[in-house]
Structures are given as C-alpha cells and as structure tokens.
C-alpha cells in the first residue's frame, strides 16, 4: 500500500512543480516527473509478489507471473513522452532565443 502512496506523492511533486515554478526548464522537469510517476503506477499494477517473467517454456509449468501487458503500454508511453519532451525543450530553446529569459513571468505578451 505504502508504495502506491509514494507513487502518488511523486505524481503530486511533478504537478506542484508545473504549477508553482517560474522557470520554463523546471516546468518541463515537473512534467517529466509526473510522467514517470504514471509509468511507475502502470508497472506497479503489473507486479505480482514472487512472480516470474511471462516467457513460455515447454519443460516447466508457470504458476505465478507478472502481467506483461502494462510493460508494453509503458514502453509506448515512454516513447510518446520522449516526443512531447523533445518538442517542449525545442520550444523552450526558441523562446530563450526570442525573449532572452526562461522566466515565465516575463514571457507574457499575449493578452489575457
């Protein structure tokens, strides 16, 4: 149980970072942290106590194995996360070129 709570805390750390930090790079890091927390949660869902890897072998019977599906999902989610992080960092670099700062309180030219 405690491990799920720690996972939630990790997620909230990331969200806090996105909401409260003023530096663009720190916001991106916040997103990455909460992303990893969600991935970790998926892996925790798959875990079975004392389970073995789900590989079929004819000579022995498998009784207790971890669920392989969430692992596949996490691999996909990591690739998606990579794409969006790369794009975010690219935009952050361009913003630095144009504005000369990473501080979001000084990057607010759009009307609200």
């Amino acid at each position, binding site marked *: 149980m405690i491990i799920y709570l720690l996972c939630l805390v990790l997620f909230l750390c990331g969200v806090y970072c996105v909401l409260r930090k003023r530096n663009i790079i720190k*916001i991106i890091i916040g997103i990455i942290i909460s992303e990893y927390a*969600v991935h970790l949660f998926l892996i925790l869902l798959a875990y079975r106590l004392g389970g073995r890897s789900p590989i079929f072998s004819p000579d022995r019977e498998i009784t207790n194995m971890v669920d392989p599906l969430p692992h596949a*999902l996490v691999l996909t989610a990591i690739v998606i996360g990579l*794409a*969006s992080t790369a794009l975010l960092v690219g*935009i952050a670099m361009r913003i630095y070129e144009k*504005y000369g700062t990473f501080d979001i309180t000084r990057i*607010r030219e*759009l009307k609200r």
Partner: protein
Amino acid sequence: MVNSSIIPLFVAVPLGGAFLNSLLGRNRKKVTDIIGVSTAFILSVLSFVALRLYNTHGVLVYNVGGWKPPIGIGMVLDGLTAFMLVTVNVVAFCIAVYSVNYMEKFTSKWKFYTLFFLMLGGMNGVIITGDIFNLFVFLEIAAVASYALVAFGTERHELEAAFKYAVMGTLGSLFILLGIAFLYGYTSTLNMADMGNILAQSGSANIVLMVIVLFLMGFGLKAALVPFHAWLPDAHPSAPAPISAMLSGVLIKSLGIYAICRIFYNVIGFNQEISAILMFFGALSMIVGGLLALGQWDFKRLLAYSSISQIGYIVLALGLGTPLGIIGGLFHLFNHSIFKSLLFLNAGAVEYATGTRDLKEMGGLASKMPFTGTTGFLGSMSIAGIPPFSGFWSKLIIIIALVQAGKVGYAFWAVIISVLTLAMYIKVIRYAFLGKLKEKWRGVEEVPLFMKLSMGALALACVAGGALLLPGVYEAFLQNAEGLLTNGTKYATVVLEAIK
C-alpha cells in the same frame, strides 16, 4: 472481411501522405501541393464510402494484425464513427485546398503538410479505434503534431502560446493515461467493448468515480471546457489560419467531445450524475465563452472564445442524454465544424490580404474583397442562428430538447447566449467588412483562387446544412450516430457480435 479492410486506411493514408511529403516534397512546392491535396481528397472520398458501407453492412470490425479482439486491437466502424469521419475528413480537405495558397508565405511548406497529415492521422485514429490505450496513442500523435503546428510561425507569440498549450496538453494526457491505468487495473482489459461489458456487470464502484473525474479533466482539457479552457484563446489565434480552422473546427471535437461521448456513453455507461456534470460544464463554458468573446478586438481571438461557447452548446446537448438532445448536439457539432472553420479561413484571408487581425483597424473590406465578405457574412449568420442557415436548426433542436426534458433554466441561458452570439458576429461584420473603407486598404486585393474555392465550398455547406434533417439523409447520417449513443453499453454486445 473485405469490407472491413477499408477501416485501417483512415490511419494509413494520412501517415503515408505525411511520409511521401517529407520524402519527395522537400523544396518542391508543386509536388507538396499535389500530394497534400490528393491525400486529403482520397480521405474525404473514403469517408463517404465508409458511411455507405456502414449503412449497408452495419457495424464492421477490423482486427489489427489478425489478432481477434478483445486480445488484439480492434478498429470499429459504427454509426458515430462514420459520422465523425465524414465531418473531419471533409473539413480537412477544404483546409488542405486553402493551404495551397495561404502557406506560400511560409518557408517550408512540406513541413506544414507533413505535420498536418500526422495530426489528421491521429484524429482519424482516435475516431476509429476500439481499444482504449490505442485511443490514447492516437490522441497523443494528434496532440503533439498540433503543438508543433501552433508554434509553426516561430515568432514570440506563437512560441509562448505553443508552450502554454503543450504544457497543459501534456498534463491533460497524463490524467487520461492515469485513468486508463485505473480502468485496466479494475477490468483487466483494454478493449472498449469488453470493458463496457465488465463494468456493466460489476455495477458501480468508487474507482469508476475516480476514473470519471480523471477523464473529465483530461478530455475536458482537450475539448476546452471552461475550467480547463485557458490554453485555447492563446493557441488557436497564434497558429496559421488553416491550422486554427483545423484546431477549432475538428481537433477539439474529435479529441475531446468524441472521446467523452464514446467513453461516458458506451464504456462507463450513462447515468444521471454524469448527465448533471456534463450539462453543468457545458452551460458554464457556453456562458463564460460567450461573455469573454464579446469583448475581444482580435478577429481570431474572438472566434476562439466563440468556439468555447459553441463547444458548451454541444456538451450541454449531449449531456442531456435524451435522443433529441443527442441529435441536436451531434448536428451542432457538424455545423460548428463547418462554420467555425469557414470563419477562421475568412479571418486568415483578411490577414493574408491586409496583414492585420485587429478589428478596429479593418473596415469596408467587403468592397475590396467581396468573396471573403460574402462567405464571412454567411458563416456569421449561420453561427448566430439566423434561419434558414444550418446553425439555426441545430440550436433550435437543442433548445426544444432542453425544454422537453424540463430543463427550462438551461434553455433560457441557451437562448440568451444565442442572442449574444448574434451580437458578437454583428460586431465582426460591422467592423471588418462593412463601413467606410480606410485609406490604407485602397490597394487590398481579393485572395487567390484556391482560398476562394475552399471558402465557397464551406459557405455552401453552411447554407445547405439544414438539408441534413431531410428524410433519407437524416436516417443515414445523424440517426445512426444518435442510435449508437442512446444504446449506451449495448455497444459492447454489438461490437462483440461483429467480431464473430
């Protein structure tokens, strides 16, 4: 089996178009144009073929890689899917034609078309997939492509808007992924039909409530419902005009509203609580979006706020849950994607000719740009709900449905906001197209041929949109989609039947 092999083409064709474009279209603008327009044309023809197939054969399921659902991934063609495919691909075709001229002023057109088709492929994927994790993957493809497209101009404002949009969009996607993880943990399946079956048998549980909240945050952010709307008025005006039209016209609908409908109606199962929540958020976005739009002087920003308001109408009607309400919501969804993309294309045409988006600086442009002026007038009257244009019929149905269900308060607000919408579009017409021509716009010329063609086609659809209610067309197009949503979790039985 032969029939269902059309389904994966909706993902394969745009991805192929994007690939060919980046391979052959580099620095060859003619090739890029030809590939872009022909890919979009093939897709819109295919969507009508799919609609016809559904009407003759019923629900079709394609098994990806030959693995049978619920183990493998299934792609499902049903009434709602066929309806959404036609809406998305027809609008995308008009916008692709428009981009031929409009995107000339940007340096790398092939990059634009590549990203455009990635986004279109993602949207089509969201619509046709029958697997909830697959839905997430396609949603992210469309979303990441749209972040890049908002930043396409790479100027100060574009980058700022794109960053804001990307941060909020990524967080929204994380909530969706978390919701999917909870659902998988509870039902041990990812197939939406199978999941619906299991959830219907197990009854209500607290975890389902948690999932509903997570999905409301995630998909509500994609659909720009009011507490989650902050990114839209920045992101939509900053993108190039064809992309604004694409984002406001179809992206928020296929990623947000379609996914909300599919999951809340067909997987989790519709009930009074969900209905109350959706109607509240719908009415809130309708009112707040409408009030904020009224005070805007930036042409595209006004349109973006108006999008929030119209999305509110759609969610309000769909949240009502009665058959008439669903018909009204879907009909308004179709109409809104037509006239909002038309209006964004008009704003783009004005920007193309004059270089400004500020309504105060315009004036009298109708005399110099008669075609843009006329189509803009038709679009505005349609969105404001003036009979006999298409927007009138859908708003009428929504209001009648609200009154019939006894929700007179919501109906009252719907009428008030409709009047406000009329006011804000009269403002647009008055300041942009009518009035005295300013001295500096003497040399303004009408936009090139392809832009006129696509605006003309969309304006025609605005005028003739009411024809969708005629018998024959109505049954084939709207009623099928409505039937699927009213059936609720019976969707599961239908899909599992079609797999066999």
